[in-house]
């Protein structure tokens, strides 16, 4: 009886530990199949510092459902800092912040169909290029 209870609580604790990690760790950056970029360029791309890949204009899109995990994992910043950087960049350089999609499905569809598109999702879709899948 005691061993059953112990196993039950162990499994519960393990599940609690795994759930938040899976949420942040599963974010992957995806690009349209015609885009050639490297994982090391992701930060520059999402901050508007890299706007072209070869001759292709990059079309960057944010994902409201996965933004927290993406920013902490790939950008090492929170949403407030990310938005502040974009406000300054838009004001000084005339750049436009990435439009925000609401779900993985929307981002995947947009990236699949838009030449130069780059986004991120928490579930890996088909028909796109995976830039980094940890």
């Amino acid at each position: 009886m005691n061993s059953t209870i112990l196993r039950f609580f162990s499994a519960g604790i393990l599940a609690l530990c795994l759930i938040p990690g899976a949420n942040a760790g599963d974010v992957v950056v995806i690009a349209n199949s015609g885009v050639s970029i490297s994982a090391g360029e992701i930060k520059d791309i999402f901050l508007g510092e890299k706007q072209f890949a070869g001759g292709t204009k990059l079309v960057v899109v944010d994902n409201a459902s996965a933004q927290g995990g993406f920013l902490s994992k790939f950008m090492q910043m929170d949403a407030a800092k990310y938005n502040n950087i974009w406000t300054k960049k838009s004001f000084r350089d005339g750049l436009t912040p990435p439009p925000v999609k609401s779900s993985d499905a929307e981002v995947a569809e947009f990236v699949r169909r838009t030449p130069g598109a780059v986004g991120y999702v928490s579930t890996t879709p088909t028909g796109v290029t995976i830039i980094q899948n940890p």
Partner: protein
Amino acid sequence: MVNTGNVSMKNPGLSKVPVLLRASILGVLLSSSVPAFADATSDSMKVMANKIEALQNQLSQMTSGMASHSGGDQGLPLHGFMDVGFATNTMADPVAYPTGFYVGSLSFYLTPHFGDKVKALFEPNFEIASDGSLSTDLERAQIGYTFSDAATLWAGRFHTPYGYWNTGFHHGAQMQTSVMRPRFLDFEDKGGVLPAHMVGLWGAGKIRAGAGKFTYDVFAGNGPKIVMGADPLTGLGIQDINFAGDNNHQAMVGLNLGYEFSGSMNGLRVAVHSLRGDVDDDNALPNKTELNMVGGSLVYLENDWELLTELYRFNDNDKSGLTGSHKSSASYLQIGKSFNNLTPYIRKEVANLSQQDNYFSMQASGQSYSRELLGFKYDLDPKASLKLEWHYSNFQAETGRTPAKYHSLYTQYAIRF
């Protein structure tokens, strides 16, 4: 619908058919009709699936189009800043707000993009001057062409890209920590001694170099002229940026070369800058001064710290009176640290401006001064801030100038949208 009970009653002969035979017939009928029904269902489902897919495609294209219009290349994003506040001081500041509530500025900026490489930036600004009059200004009207990540060329009217503050914050009061700009870097009619705006060409870009990035701004445009009598308090002059053409046909040129660090030094940027050109005033016998400014800036914005410092050294040459060259300098250092939403900060400004130099002596704002400043910024949310700021200013006794020492207190409520 088949009602077997009624059929049985109307066709009594059927009741004589053995139950087993009827069951067999029903079985044969069913066994032959199920595949047919299944095929028909399968075809219908395929048609339905195709229709759903077509609808999905149409919806996707519509939403993609809407997204593109709202935040992509074809829309007209509108942003802006506004601030209001209250000011008081122990002596009338010649250029800052007199005691009482004030409306600062309402500044809009639009960033339309046209295709992949053409973009524009427009910034109409509405501002209440210290005499209460409303001034409307086209702060920026610039059209750019992006050749690559390393090169964008702008043409039009832009914020002159020296130092950090002038292009980093300008009318964006909510973005900057303090209420007031460093005085010598303020706008031309607010106490600044440099042309904060320019009409001309501006090339800018970033190039990866090592772990960080090399940044550059190179610009050339109409040099300003000093319009004498434009300041009603002193009768001295204020810089006019020559919006519609260069009065002396001498371009003003400048550059700002920097390096942005990354890794453990992420957030640090160091840069050198220079500005050179001839500036005339409109006296009956005009003074012509060759402005030669060199300096540098250091900015650190990371780990909740804000450190800003800029240095400007002048070695101006009198080209009309032949009095030789005159040295001046101006600098500031501002340090702030954020504790959640609260950011206390301090700043020291010093400007030693030679009154032998016509460039400064002809300007109402060309008086030497020092200023200490202490303030607090509280972010109500990421787009709204409350600020409280105290100044102690000391304007020096110089030829043709009135010395002044006074305290000022400012509050500001600033938003961005």
